[in-house]
Structure formats: structure tokens, C-alpha cells
């Protein structure tokens, strides 16, 4: 029931969620509640597939996914930061727009409906880590993922360094807490918020690229299937802390992969569907109880 394959498949499957959750965490720290992750990821997935298909290079596909995700997130940046529109409203609308837009484009760009896939479409290859691959268990778990999987782990560390070691991180945490105070010290709230939203767009582009070129090699209407929302939940569970978000995404991915296996022993699919959320809730209760206790003891 629990073996290396379980962890390995969970790690691959949770990568899009992790990228998106990092995007959400980054925005959260700067005081932007970003729920447009789902839609931006979908647009990124489409751009990745289109890019890979037309250039014939999966790397250019990934690059195009990143650029498109960044460009798409401009809607939130302009609407929320410049115009002051409500981030939740914009986020929901951006998600709706992504579904409509990609379904529409799949017709006009690929001349097909619903799903585009082709054996000639270049996807991301698995990378076999030298040395690591030969370690029993660990090798199976850690080796053999796409480059983007490893990149997502690097992104976790990079985010932690940015937030806690880089001046930008200090500033955007400050902006998230009190934008007027940051502004009075000459830190441009607008510029930093644009920055995090656009960087979040790039991360969502990577999420989409991994989903459509790494996990599978195709684009399908609405293929994100709620992963962006799970990312939003992971941001909450991880309290927008880089390692917290990583842990939340891993917890979620494992709960889901484990749920699939539980189906095999006769649990109804509806129960295994709910499992990751219930596990997340329990984790939240436990962690907030612990935080309370440590707070009370000081």
C-alpha cells in the first residue's frame, strides 16, 4: 500500500499545485489575495502546449508558458493594484475568462475541440539523477521526474531566501502588513504588488507547463480541474510561509495518492475525494492548537 511508487507519483502530481501555491504565497505576503491561480495555470498550460507544438521545442514551450502566464496576470495587477478592484471578484472572473478563452483558442489555434494531443507534441522528459537513482527507495522517489519538478523545489528555497534574506522580501512583507507605512518610506506599493502578481503569473505558467507537458502531454479544456483552488488552500494551510506551503502541498499530494489506493480496497471514490480536504482540516486544527499553546505559554 505504501511504497516508493506512491511517493514518486505524488511528487509529480503535486508539482503544479506547488508552483501555484508558491505564487499564491508570494502574493499573500504582499497583501494580495490571489485566487486567479486556477485560471492562470490553465492559460499557462495552453500556452505551453501551443508553444511546444509550434516551435517543436519543449523548452520554448515552457518559456512561452511562463511569458503568457505573466502577461495574463497583468489583468489582476492592473484591475486590482491600479484600479482598486476587488481581488476576489477579479480572481473569479479571471478564472472564468481562462476557461472560455482557452476553449475558444483550442478551436482557432488547433482547429479541434476539447482536447489537443498529438504523438509529435514534445513533452518534458524524465530526468534520472545520477547517484541518487541507485539509492533504494529514495532513488525511486526522488529520481525520474521532469526538470520542472526539481525546479519547483528550488523555487521553494528561492522564495524563502527572497522573503527572509532579500530586501525585496522584507519590503513586500511590510507592504502586506501596512501599505501606508511602506509607502511613507518611499517603497512603491504599486511596483511591488505588480511584481508579486506578475511573478506569480510566471510561477502559474510553470505550473501549467508541468501539468500539460510534464504530468501529461496534451491540452484539454479546463484541465486544471480545481488544482488552483487546492493551491489556495495550501497557501492557507502553510500560512504563506515557503516551507509551510511546501509541506501543505506534499500533505495534500500524499493524501490524494493514498486515497487512490484506498479505492482499491473498496472505499467509495466520494470518500477518497474528500480525504485530502479532511486531512488538511485536521492538520490546520492541530497546527493552530499548537500555535495557541505556544502563545499561551509565553
Amino acid at each position, binding site marked *: 500500500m505504501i511504497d516508493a511508487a506512491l511517493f514518486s507519483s505524488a511528487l509529480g502530481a503535486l508539482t503544479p499545485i506547488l508552483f501555484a501555491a508558491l505564487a499564491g504565497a508570494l502574493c499573500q505576503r504582499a497583501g494580495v489575495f490571489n485566487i486567479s491561480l486556477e485560471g492562470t495555470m490553465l492559460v499557462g498550460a495552453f500556452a505551453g502546449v501551443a508553444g511546444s507544438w509550434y516551435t517543436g521545442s519543449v523548452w520554448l514551450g515552457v518559456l512561452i508558458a511562463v511569458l503568457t502566464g505573466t502577461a495574463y496576470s497583468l489583468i489582476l495587477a492592473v484591475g486590482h493594484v491600479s484600479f482598486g478592484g476587488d481581488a476576489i471578484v477579479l480572481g473569479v472572473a479571471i478564472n472564468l475568462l481562462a476557461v472560455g478563452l482557452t476553449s475558444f483558442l483550442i*478551436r482557432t489555434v488547433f482547429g479541434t475541440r476539447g482536447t489537443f494531443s498529438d504523438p509529435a507534441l514534445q513533452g518534458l522528459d524524465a530526468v534520472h539523477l545520477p547517484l541518487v537513482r541507485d539509492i533504494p527507495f529514495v532513488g525511486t522517489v526522488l529520481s525520474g521526474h521532469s526538470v520542472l519538478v526539481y525546479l519547483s523545489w528550488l523555487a521553494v528555497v528561492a522564495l524563502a531566501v527572497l522573503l527572509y534574506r532579500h530586501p525585496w522580501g522584507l519590503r513586500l512583507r511590510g507592504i502586506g502588513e501596512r501599505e501606508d507605512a511602506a509607502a511613507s518610506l518611499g517603497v512603491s506599493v504599486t511596483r511591488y504588488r505588480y511584481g508579486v502578481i506578475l511573478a506569480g503569473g510566471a510561477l502559474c505558467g510553470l505550473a501549467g507547463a508541468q501539468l500539460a507537458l510534464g504530468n501529461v502531454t496534451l491540452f484539454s479544456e479546463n484541465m486544471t480541474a480545481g488544482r488552483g483552488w487546492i493551491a489556495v488552500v495550501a497557501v492557507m494551510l502553510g500560512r504563506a510561509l515557503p516551507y509551510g506551503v511546501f509541506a501543505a502541498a506534499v500533505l495534500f499530494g500524499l493524501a490524494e495518492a493514498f486515497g487512490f489506493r484506498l479505492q482499491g480496497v473498496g472505499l467509495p471514490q466520494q470518500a477518497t475525494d474528500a480525504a485530502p480536504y479532511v486531512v488538511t482540516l485536521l492538520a490546520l486544527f492541530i497546527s493552530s492548537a499548537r500555535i495557541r499553546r505556544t502563545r499561551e505559554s509565553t
Partner: protein
Amino acid sequence: MKTVAVTLLAALALGAILLAATGANPLEAYQAIVTGAFGPDGFQDTLAYAVPVVGMATALAIPLRAGMVNLGGEGQLVLGAISAIAVGLHVPGPLGLVAALVAGVLAGALYASIAAVCETRLGVPLLVTTLLLSYPAMSFAAYLVRFPMRDEGSSLPQSDQLPADVRFTELAPGLFLIAAVVVVYAVVDARTPAGFETRVTGWGPRFAQYAGIDRPALTVRLLACSGGLAGLVGAVVALGFPYRFIDGALITPQYTWIGLLAALLAAANPLGTLVAAVFFAALTSGGFAMERETQVPRELTAVLQAVLIIFLAAATGLLRKRRNPA
């Protein structure tokens, strides 16, 4: 008002360009939306959408007025519906109708209260608990209608049909119920101390605490009202045609999210929420009509709607910025 009009025009212009680019006639398409939403045939459809959308918008506006976001409307809605059906199938006669509605309200209210208690007792933010609790509720209802409560005659994940006397055969009763709730909300909000205290909490948590408002109690009360209303909406929809619970029927039309959009755009103001919700309902039924009447592909309707909402959000943001310069 001028800003809103200008941005609406901009959105329509952008939509027209999109429509024209795909070879459709923008004027015809827009006309189809308007007649589809408000024409003699379409108005009925608009009302049918408006009942759940207005209901959910109001449900989510209630806690939003105090600055609390309930992201779990879907779970509360679905639980309300399935409870109403469960009761309606077993309690006959007009009593069954009332019992079903009450069951819907209670189920939604209790479920939402759990999230409230999680915040007040355990300190887990409402935003998180409401959203997370929503999924198990939906899975639970899906399980019920696939197995224990399944309609034996059908292969669909749906419950049995309600007996003939436990049904809303017309739109009117549901419409009146929801309209009554909206009126009650508006009156309570503007004219009662409880409504005032809710608004005070929305202005600032510290100020509310200082002024002696019992936030934990208020949280539970508001969430119970919010969930109860969401449950009522579920019950009303389930009691209407086709008089049964169909898995996904309350989720795919996005009543909850569209309702949340309306409530947020209107800053939970009762009248504003109503107007925004009706507008979105009209846009939905008009969109379907446009698809039927013209050559416009359905994806484009979705694009058009989303663009409109984005512009609207930006416009209201600008409006609010102007009104309260920081």
C-alpha cells in the same frame, strides 16, 4: 455612476471587437442577449437563475457585511438541498413542504456554524474552514445520491422524485421566499441594532471589540444565517422541477461564485447585492439565448461575461477609491 457606465461601454466595445473578429454581428448578438434575458420567453429563464443567484449572493453578503468571507457556500447549498429532499421524501403533505424547507435551513446553518466555531474556538480563519468544509459536504451528498439515496429507476446519480404534494411546481413560491429574505436582510441591516453592530464589525475588528461587540457570538450568528440561507436556496431549488437532488446540479451553474461576485462588488450592501445578482442572472440566461439565436460559439459567451465582470470590478474599485481617498 459615470465611471461604471464608461467601463461597461468599454467592456461592450471590447466584446464587440471579439464578436466581430469571429465573424458574428455584434449588434445582433447583444440584441439576442437582451431579448434572451428580458424578452417574454427569456424573462422566465432569468428569474429562474435569479432565485438561486440572488439567494446565494444575499447569503454570502450577510457575513461579508461584518468583514467575514464565507467561501463555503457550495457545501451549505448542497447540504440544504439534500436534507430538504431527505425530509421531503419521508414527510407527506404540505407539512412535508415546510419540513423540507426547515431541514434545508437547519442543515446549512449548522454546517456553517461549525466553521464559525472553528474560528472562535480553535482560531482557524473562517476563510479557510468554510472553503475546506465545503468539499467533504459535496462529496457526502454525491455519495448519498449514488448509493443510499439513489433513484433506483435511473442510472443517474440522483435521488428519487419528491411526492406530488411536496413540490414547488411554479417559480413563484421560491421567488417570494427569496425576495422576502432579501427584504428582511435590507431592513435588519439598515434599521436594527443587530444590523448596525454587524456593520460596525465590518468597519474594524478592534473598534468593534472596544465598542463591546461580542465578535465570537456575532460570527456564529452571522454564519448560521448565511449557511441557513444557503441551505434554504438549496431546498428551494431542490423542491422545484425536476423535484429531486441531482449530483452537481447546484455546483455546475456556479450559483455560489456568481453570488459571491455580486456580494463583493456591492460591498454586501443589500440593494446593491440584489441589483448585481440580478444583472449576473440576466447575463447568464441572455448568454444562452445568444448561443441559440446566433452563430456565436459558447466559449465566446463565457469570455464576454468574464470581460464584463473584470471591467465592472475595476470600475467599482475606481469608484471606491475616488470616494475614500486613502
